[in-house]
């Protein structure tokens, strides 16, 4: 009986040794993960290429995102002085053509209805070909607003 017990113990010991001799082994590494949520109040550019400030007649300072169609956090946007060569209405948009260097494609401002003062809606509804002159624009709460536009043919 004792011999059987001894055999059993030794067998278990050898079997466990055989199994641990060829295990699948593993290696592990850990990486950090991060994300930053920005408060809407901290977002400077609501829509890319939105007019923020006006400096002089025909010269506008625009804050635009560093890449077209993207949105930047306040303070990280690109600031560029652009010379306005022409501006006109197109549907519900104001299209600006600039002559800054290097030449930029047409800048398109989409006006919200709240910005459409001084008969803007009626002017914009006339469609293409309407010449506009921006007389006053300023930044409020990080969002550019066009206040007055005079249209003349």
């Amino acid at each position, binding site marked *: 009986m004792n011999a059987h017990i001894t055999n059993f113990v030794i067998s278990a010991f050898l079997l466990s040794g055989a199994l641990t001799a*060829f295990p699948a082994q*593993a290696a592990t590494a850990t990486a950090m*993960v991060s*994300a930053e949520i*920005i408060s809407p109040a901290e977002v400077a550019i609501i829509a890319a290429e939105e007019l923020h400030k006006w400096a002089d007649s025909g010269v506008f300072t625009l804050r635009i995102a*560093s890449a077209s169609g993207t949105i930047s956090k306040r303070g990280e946007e690109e600031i560029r002085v652009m010379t306005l060569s022409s501006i006109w209405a197109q549907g519900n948009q104001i299209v600006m053509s600039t002559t800054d260097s290097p030449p930029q494609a047409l800048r398109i401002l989409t006006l919200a209805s709240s910005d459409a003062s001084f008969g803007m809606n009626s002017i914009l509804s006339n469609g293409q070909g309407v010449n506009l002159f921006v007389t006053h624009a300023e930044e409020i709460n990080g969002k550019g607003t066009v206040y007055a536009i005079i249209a003349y043919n």
Partner: protein
Amino acid sequence: MTTYVSRYRIAAPFRLLMAIFFFMTLATPAKAYHYSIVNNDSLVFGSFVAGTGGTVTINASNGARSATGGVTLLNSTYRQARFTVSCVPDLIIDCLLVTGYSIDPVADIVLTNGANSMPVTNFSVYSVNSGNSSGQLSGGTDSLKVGAKLTAGNNQSPGYYSGSFSVTVTYP
């Protein structure tokens, strides 16, 4: 005639076990290598406005970022995590004979910012050598890229969220 019976005689089943054990020991060469995995880049979801809530996903293979729901992505740095898997010879034995390994599923995690949190799920791993989620060494190394999906709640509190995850590779 005197017959001697040893009190330590070995039973037949035990002799068989010993034979199997010694056969395996002799027939299988000792493992002369091990794998290592090193983290090279963290997983960065970048900056965004949570809005009404939604998801931000980093694609494992190309690192592209996309959003759903009310999330507005901001112009910022984002990237998939990157790891390097290598076979390291313990003796002067070539690792080139070893090519395969498996990648364990990556467990979901939670990013935290104080008492606020966001879950990160759907981790996906991309092996540069295999072009899919199967691990494959080439020249003794492989590069793994890891993406995942982050879920932000409605008006998720602004701030910097962080966490960590682990990738485990299993090799023969």
